[in-house]
């Protein structure tokens, strides 16, 4: 398994390099000069030239690229053009909030999604099944900003059950609504996938055999069926975790949550190249790590899978 992990990490290097290069090229060809944006609507050309030189934007493109890759190899993602903040410390600072939100959203989504999916499959075509799948379809279709606003208007501003927006210095009550908002879509996806996987597995011969052996239905469902239906579910959970960890722009915006998503969007608007590159590299790494963990979990779920 160790050599498998090592191999995966080595494969990741060209992927990250590819991402970095594509982002660098895109930033170079997109119109909009970051130095110009720093100056505001008008600026003196001489000052503009000095700011561009200060930021290294006056160098030929290939030199800018090699300088950037060199810094990256040394672990330096650069300094934000927008506010002089070190990109690494900005990411670390915002990732805490994103991680907290994503973790709880995923816990809620996984628990509700898996439970609803299993029950729907077991009670196929029942009222519960129809209701759960109706809610799941609504959950997948409902725009996040709409869900977020609705929850806020009802629970925070209507019934005053929960505080409004913000991080609340870590107070858990501020976490409830963003977690629910962010968790709705993954929960719906997980529920639908779990249901379909369970239905497929439960029509297999070995399930009939298990039942014929006289095993309790609970054991049949959870031990024989669910375990075999788990691999696609884990895959989608992995992808969703990676997506949530990369920052949920809309949820973070509505709830004024200080996460990576907002950092990335503000960087894009300001043409803050170092911060844009930093957030993209960060997202790429998150996806690679999440995929690696998902791959490794296959072996735990299904011992027939080997990492040769």
């Amino acid at each position, binding site marked *: 398994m160790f050599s498998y992990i090592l191999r995966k990490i080595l494969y990741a290097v060209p992927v990250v390099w590819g991402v970095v290069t594509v982002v660098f090229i895109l930033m170079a060809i*997109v119109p909009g*000069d970051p130095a*110009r944006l720093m100056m505001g609507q008008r600026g003196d050309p001489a000052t503009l030239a000095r700011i561009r030189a200060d930021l290294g934007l006056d160098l030929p493109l290939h030199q800018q690229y090699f300088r950037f890759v060199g810094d990256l190899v040394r672990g330096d993602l650069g300094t934000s053009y927008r506010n*002089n903040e070190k990109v690494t410390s900005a990411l670390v600072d915002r990732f805490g909030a994103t991680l907290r939100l994503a973790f709880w959203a995923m816990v809620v989504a996984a628990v509700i999604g898996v439970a609803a999916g299993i029950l729907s499959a077991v009670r196929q075509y029942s009222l519960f099944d129809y209701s759960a799948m109706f809610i799941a379809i609504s959950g997948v279709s409902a725009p996040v900003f709409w869900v977020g606003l609705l929850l806020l208007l009802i629970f925070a501003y209507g019934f005053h059950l929960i505080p409004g927006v913000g991080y609340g210095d870590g107070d858990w009550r501020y976490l409830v609504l963003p977690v629910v908002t962010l968790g709705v879509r993954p929960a719906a996806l997980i529920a639908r996938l779990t249901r379909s996987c369970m239905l497929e597995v439960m029509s297999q011969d070995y399930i009939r055999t298990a039942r014929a052996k006289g095993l309790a239905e609970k054991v049949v469902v959870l031990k024989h069926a669910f375990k075999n239906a788990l691999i696609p579910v884990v895959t989608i959970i992995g992808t969703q975790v990676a997506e949530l960890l990369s920052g949920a722009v809309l949820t973070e*915006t509505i709830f*004024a949550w*200080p996460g990576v998503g907002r950092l990335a969007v503000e960087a894009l608007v300001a043409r803050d190249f170092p911060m844009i590159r930093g957030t993209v590299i960060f997202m790429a790494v998150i996806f690679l790590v999440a995929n690696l963990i998902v791959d490794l979990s296959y072996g735990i779920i299904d011992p027939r899978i080997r990492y040769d």
Partner: protein
Amino acid sequence: MRKALRVCCLLLAGLLLILTVSAAMAEEPVYGGILRWREINDPPKLDPAIATDTVSSRNIYLMFDMLVDNDPDGKGIIPRLAESWEGSDGGKVWTFHLRKGVHFHKENLGQPTENGGREVKAADWKYSMERLVKVNSPRAYFIDMVKGYQDFVDGKTADWVGIKAVDDYTLRFELDYPFAPFLSVLAYNSFMVVPREDAEKWGKDFNFHPVGTGAFILERWDHDQKTVYKRNPDYWKRDAQGRQLPYLDGVEIFVIPDNTIAYEEFKKGNIDAFPDFPDEFYLEAKVRFGDLLQERPWLGTYYYGFNTSKPPFKDNKTLRQAMNYAVDRKRINDLVLEGRYYPGRGVLPPGMPGYNPDLKGYEYNPELAKKMMADAGYPDGIEVELNVNNNPRHKAVAEAIQAQLAELGIKLNVKVLDWGVHLDLCERAETEMFRMGWVVDYADPDNFLYVLLHSSNFGAKGNYAYYKNEKADELMAAARVETDFDKRVELYREAERIIVDDAPWIFLFHYTTSLLGQERVKNLRLPAFGDYTTPLEAVWIAK
């Protein structure tokens, strides 16, 4: 009978006196409380030398002071850290007499500062001005007329020779030429005093450890959440009764990106001040909050520029004038902007020195517009592209104008662009028409007319229309160096008349600025310079 009447009158007078006294006592400022102010995004910069946006400025005004300030009602320049000043040598020398007993912050982010809370001296001002150049301030060039600027920028001199600390409390600027708006420029929020010890200790990171002389001290900066300020107990300013300011214990500036949520938070009482109040809730808030929603003309102009360096607008004044006549500004303002702006007649906004209330401008006249279109060589209309930066308000205005112009056969293709791309294209004159707005940096007609329409400022320097008229150029240049205020005003008015006649823009609207405050927040007064400049040192919260 007469005696009874006299007694009644006396009793009534006594009652009135008691009521007046108790009302006055009820309005007596009280110390304490935290004011929660809403902003739309995290301030990018807290170092006045490098900040250029209004959110940063809101924060900076709490912590720093300039030499002079703008009068809250736009009636000239008032003292701040300079108690008085005088100009000499035909406006080429400006001498400022500094206020004594002004101290830098003793602490910052809960730690003692390097300066230790020492008094501000003239040498600090010289250092602060020179620092602008050293840190490549985007605004240092505003005072490039101060003698020795270029040599200091080029590193030919060790100091900026045009700035002299005559003694501890006297500061002198020597200019290369008389520059009439100089005082107004110094009221801009880049020209603030910082302590050398702290600025040098932190270098570029001074942005995260800002130390000034202002009413509030930075206590915490939670990025994308809030900036937290506490009261500066050594602040130099006192109220009319000699009481120490500020009254508030602190200010918290909350970042709430979404307008709907911000408004709900305000209604819930979670925020006390909501600046730049959005259109979508304007009518509701006016009814619900009445006078608590303050609004007043802002020194800004909203316009559509024509690219006068390329066809079809190059050398076709009649076409440009026709399009000015074709737009019903009042109707668009009423229908799209909830009547919040002022229809524009020229370049200068109301309230700006030199504003000409008698300027005729372009009244909506579709018949005349149609005739002029034919005279301009477009009897069947014309198809032009309008670039607009991405913003719901700008998009709505563009669509309304598109519909009005369509009635005259003018097909306006609206292209909505990201701000960075929009600026880039305007700068390179790769547009036919473009939306732009301008809000003053300093309250002087120079900041509108010379900056936006003088031919020496083509492109990034402000003249995106690439407009040139030699006569107007001469008048604007003459006005810059004219020290007699009345003569200056006349020069600017003449220049503006020529410009309006040449129609390099569609002169659309003049902005307003707005601020919604809670009833318990007292003395919250919206200044003419915009919501972000609202002074908070005399604000107090009723218990």
